[in-house]
């Protein structure tokens, strides 16, 4: 399943809180694209994925925001 989450304009800790909330109800293997412009996002999303054991498939610098793709383990 593919979902997306737009966390732009939201600051720490909301991006990871919203990711956690959204992935809690997702099935294993589900992919989610997350957009965020919080400056802490690149470090935080990497840490979140390492800690929770979910997979960070990609993390890109888009104009004005970051885009991460996460797969639920």
């Amino acid at each position: 399943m593919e979902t997306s989450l737009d966390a732009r304009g939201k600051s720490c800790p909301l991006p990871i809180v919203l990711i956690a909330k959204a992935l809690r109800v997702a099935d294993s293997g589900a992919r989610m694209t997350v957009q965020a412009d919080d400056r802490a996002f690149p470090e935080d999303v990497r840490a979140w994925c390492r800690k929770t054991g979910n997979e960070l498939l990609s993390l890109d610098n888009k104009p004005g925001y970051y885009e991460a793709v996460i797969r639920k383990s």
Partner: protein
Amino acid sequence: MSAAPHLVSPSLESRLAALEAEMRSLAETSLAQAARLDTTSELLRGTGQQEKLSLIVFSGSLDRLIAAFVLATGAAAMGMEVSMFFTFWGTAALRREQVHVKKTLLERMFGWMLPKGVKKLPLSQMNMAGGGPAMIRYVMKKNGVASVEEMIELSKELGVELNVCTMSMDLLGMKPDELIDYPGRTFCGVAKFLETAAPGKITMFL
């Protein structure tokens, strides 16, 4: 009758066979070890032992409460178990906006001085008679930071545990009905806090 021709001498062959057996057993051991490591990391990842964050919220100022709830919601999002213990001014910060309960004169006097609701909390610095909190709330909104009220709601959703110190409630003359609604909130003392925090990885006093 002739035996199969030996490519190497019989003594060498037996040594080779011994080496082969040794290599097989080594491979088996390392496979077993890898499997055991997998199980361990699986356990550490949160399926078994969950990491724990315990927060003592002593302060009742808006800025410290922001810090407390950023940590609590963030840790819950990281898959950690989170317990918050509200004591002293922290307990007073959990008052509802408007509620009437029976109190003694001294308790009522305390009540007049304590903040009436999360929305009325002062800042620990630059309070400026209430101007500071208004400014902080404005810049928080502008920067997309969740308000304390929103973070309390998120904490409920994420299963953050809320414990309130009964001793400080008695000292400040506060009644359970005066506190904000929070599912599963517990009124307790230091023993409950220590029992909860002891196996935890992170404990903070705010």
